[in-house]
């Protein structure tokens, strides 16, 4: 029913004159809308615009193409970039091989990782294996560490003289060089990634297993199904949505990971998508890099869509009610101790062994000589000595390392705080505006960065911020761009915690403040923010942890003036300064584990489950 039918003609025209003022009043009355628009605008610039830029740049001649096509007109539409990557003579090297490698690694790591992770989850959640608490805590440590720590340890152990440089521990102890396929390339990449990402699968599956009601299995037993049949016909189908999720999400992560394929693949020119993007950008063939990044994004979107179809069609089979919900432990019987020992050995190999290797590596005075006599604390506390490692001092005295440490912490703290606040703002706008179009768009755009593989997002940001854009100056090479990209990448997680925190604050608590005359800014300061802090802290600490360990996201954006610990480690490794890379890695791991203990203190152990969203 149109409003005008109730008013006379003169009244209707008076009405339309007042319309603008009226709608402005209405908007002022809804601060969540104004905030929503602001957040959406900022996110649009930080997330959508770079994406469009890259798509645009892929289809248009750029200045660096003139080297290949001198008579091309910069800015004109072209399929040159696509041709070069997909159909040209270089496409095999640029696209097909990396594609096969990435997909091959992805499939193998996913099978291994999700398999191991699910198995561990089942053992630790559903059976009566011993030392559950200790194992539960230790099993996630590999995931907290950067994904390439294992690769570094592997190199220390198994590197051969293919790339020159010093000997690995294996050679030093056994006198024989490991073959190339063991030291570099497909095999070690798969192993190292699987031994890192299994923890991700564990986190996802243990959550799902913990919520499967054992009464459902008992009902199967009463119907006459034996243990194997129950597992096959009841438990597995119930877990299928979670399993599907774990498979898809792990696969997407593997596609975009940089560190391990770089450390173990580049020395033998074994390229994955991520390392090929890096190589192309280094060679100033940005066009190739952008096209590859787009392919990654399309693949990620496809898989996420598949994932949502798996979940969507079958919905979640997790039983959510508290009543009648029991978890009965499955007795392992004679297998109890063997299983416990096996898990302990596994934890030792994936958690303790790499750290020990790196520790040892950081203490040897002469690279390649691993005897116990040749140990020193020089790389930790020694002053500069031109005879040792190009004069680079130990950690405590090295300005480069200390600056990088400070930068890492600065980045982590800034990202955590900005993310916390921005996530809360997004949460406020999305929750208070629930049901409106604006709120749905906001939630959607805030989650979009989740689907961008890290390396692709880095490539996009190089593309967008290497030149000034509107009011924003060229941010490439600055600290600001590191903060921006970290905030954007973590936004899906923090906006989820922001929304969760806001849902705890009932609308009536704000409304009563409004009625008592308290304006919006004061309401936020006195009521909303104080009440959300505890919900946000765990989220912010987790952002800090993930930022500290991040490499794939920022490797393309780091510059010597803005170096962080992870980039520094990568550089040390390229220069074969193995002791320094080992020592600094250990430093990083100690910081991360330390902060994680903080998270546990704040959240009583609940914070770890948040890792599954990172």
């Amino acid at each position, binding site marked *: 029913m149109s409003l005008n039918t109730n008013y006379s003609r003169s009244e209707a025209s008076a009405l339309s004159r*007042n319309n603008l003022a009226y709608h402005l009043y209405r908007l002022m009355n809804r601060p969540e809308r104004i905030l929503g628009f602001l957040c959406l605008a900022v996110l649009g610039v930080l997330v959508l615009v770079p994406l469009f830029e890259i798509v645009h740049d892929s289809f248009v001649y750029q200045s660096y193409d003139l080297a290949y096509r001198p008579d091309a007109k910069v800015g004109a539409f072209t399929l040159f970039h696509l041709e070069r990557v997909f159909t040209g003579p270089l496409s095999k090297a640029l696209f097909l091989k990396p594609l096969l490698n990435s997909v091959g690694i992805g499939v193998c790591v996913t099978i291994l990782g999700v398999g191991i992770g699910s198995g561990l989850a089942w053992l630790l959640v559903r059976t009566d294996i011993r030392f559950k608490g200790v194992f539960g805590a230790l099993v996630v440590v590999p995931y907290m560490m950067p994904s390439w720590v294992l690769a570094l340890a592997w190199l220390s152990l198994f590197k051969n003289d293919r790339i020159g440089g010093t000997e690995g521990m294996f050679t030093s102890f056994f006198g024989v060089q490991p073959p190339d396929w063991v030291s570099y390339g497909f095999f070690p990449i798969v192993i190292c990634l699987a031994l890192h990402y299994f923890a991700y699968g564990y986190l996802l599956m243990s959550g799902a297993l913990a919520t499967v009601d054992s009464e459902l299995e008992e009902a199967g037993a009463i119907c006459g199904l034996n243990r194997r049949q129950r597992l096959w016909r009841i438990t597995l189908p119930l877990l299928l949505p979670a399993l599907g999720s774990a498979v898809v999400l792990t696969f997407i992560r593997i596609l975009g990971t940089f560190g391990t394929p770089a450390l173990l693949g580049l020395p033998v020119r074994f390229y994955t998508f991520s390392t090929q993007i890096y190589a192309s950008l280094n060679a100033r063939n940005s066009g190739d890099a952008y096209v590859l990044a787009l392919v990654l994004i399309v693949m990620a979107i496809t898989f996420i869509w598949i994932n949502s179809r798996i979940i969507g069609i079958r919905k979640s089979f997790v039983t959510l009610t508290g009543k009648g919900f029991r978890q009965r432990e499955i007795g392992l019987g004679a297998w109890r101790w063997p299983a416990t020992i096996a898990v302990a050995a596994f934890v030792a190999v994936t958690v303790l062994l790499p750290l020990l290797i790196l520790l040892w590596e950081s203490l040897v005075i002469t690279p390649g000589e691993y005897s116990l006599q040749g140990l020193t604390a020089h790389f930790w506390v020694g002053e500069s000595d031109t005879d040792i490692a190009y004069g680079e001092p130990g950690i405590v005295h090295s300005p480069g390392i200390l600056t990088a440490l400070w930068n890492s912490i600065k980045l982590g703290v800034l990202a955590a705080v900005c993310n916390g606040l921005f996530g809360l703002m997004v949460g406020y706008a999305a929750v208070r505006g629930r049901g409106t179009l604006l709120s749905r768009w906001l939630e959607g755009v805030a989650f979009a960065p989740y689907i961008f593989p890290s390396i692709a997002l880095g490539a996009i940001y190089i593309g967008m911020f290497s030149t000034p854009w509107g009011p924003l100056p060229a941010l490439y090479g600055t600290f600001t761009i590191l903060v921006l990209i970290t905030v954007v990448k973590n936004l899906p997680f923090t906006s989820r915690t922001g929304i969760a925190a806001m849902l705890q604050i009932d609308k009536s608590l704000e409304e009563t403040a*409004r009625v008592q*005359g308290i*304006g919006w800014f*004061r309401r936020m300061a006195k009521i909303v923010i104080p*009440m959300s802090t505890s919900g946000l802290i765990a989220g912010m600490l987790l952002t800090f942890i993930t930022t500290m360990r991040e490499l794939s996201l920022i490797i393309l954006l780091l510059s010597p003036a803005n170096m962080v610990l992870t980039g520094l480690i990568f550089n040390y490794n390229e220069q074969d300064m193995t002791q320094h890379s080992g020592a600094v890695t250990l430093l990083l791991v100690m910081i991360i584990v330390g902060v994680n203990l903080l998270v546990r203190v704040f959240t009583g152990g609940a914070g770890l489950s948040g890792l599954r969203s990172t």
Partner: protein
Amino acid sequence: MEEIHLTGIRKSYGKEVAVRHLDLTIAPGAFLTILGPSGCGKTTTLRLIAGLEEPEMGEIRFGDRVVFSRREGVIVPPERRNLGLIFQSYALWPHMTVERNITLALKEQHLNSREISERLEAALEKVQMTPYQFRYPSELSGGQQQRVAVARLIASRSSILLMDEPLSNLDAKLRTEMRGELKRLHLDLEATTIYVTHDQIEALTLSDIVVVMDQGEIKQQGTPYDIYHHPENLFVADFIGDPRVNRIAGTIRQKNGAIGLDCGDLWLPIAKDPPPNARDLIATVRPESIKVSTEAKEDWLKVTLESVQPTGADTILQARSENTSITMLQPGFIRMDIGDPLWIDFDAESLNFFDVDSEANLFN
């Protein structure tokens, strides 16, 4: 004290119309209750007055002050309407002490600290919560939390008080006690109070005026007495009264020179002259106005007892006369047996008659 006017107010949520064309005037200093079943639009109306929701059209005025007008394009936000509001959930801020809950708004208004502490003390004193002023809401019982919410209202010294089912979360005994407190508060503060509830006892005991709403419309507006004894339509007659009013359908006929309602087994006298085209009607009889006798009386209707429900001070009796079931309310704790005979009679003055189609009261 100001008069509150709502004119032509309409509010929908998407396709659902919560409040249809509402016209309501509230006299200054009145205690007005909006009464109705769930979903009738009473809370929406309260929130429209508070400014927490916006109507699509109409006008809301406090005295001369226009706080909402679609025509003039005026919207005054709730922060500037200067009212007091108690929520059903009390909406106490959990991270603040009782004292902070009461004084936060006063501090934000930049009142001087002496004024603030005077108001705080007076408010705490009134609700008898002085020893609890440094406790947190989670450390208080439901009744105590409610009193803090009331104290907040007292400290605000608003001249318009809005209350959204403030007693529904309390147990029965506390409810009765707090009912009296709220009325006293209204009188002490000399405020105009709008009270929303689905509980008719609260409505009848507290109000100067009761507004009965159903499906977004006002069904009747009047004093508790009017609502109870002269319902304007069947909905109001049905909704008010516990136990429920008796509904008996029948047709107008003449008998022995008098006009009455022929309801099959019963005959109900009609005291006034019905309008000429009235034929089929529904009569309502309040259970307590039926005359009951355990001894046979001439011209009285004989009924058979079906159930006896003593409630302490009264007893609800249900009896049957061939096709009609009748509920009666008699004082005292009555002990009778099912199947016992009773004789009943109807007092013409206590009957109300409603047209079958329009459901409107014939004689209002």
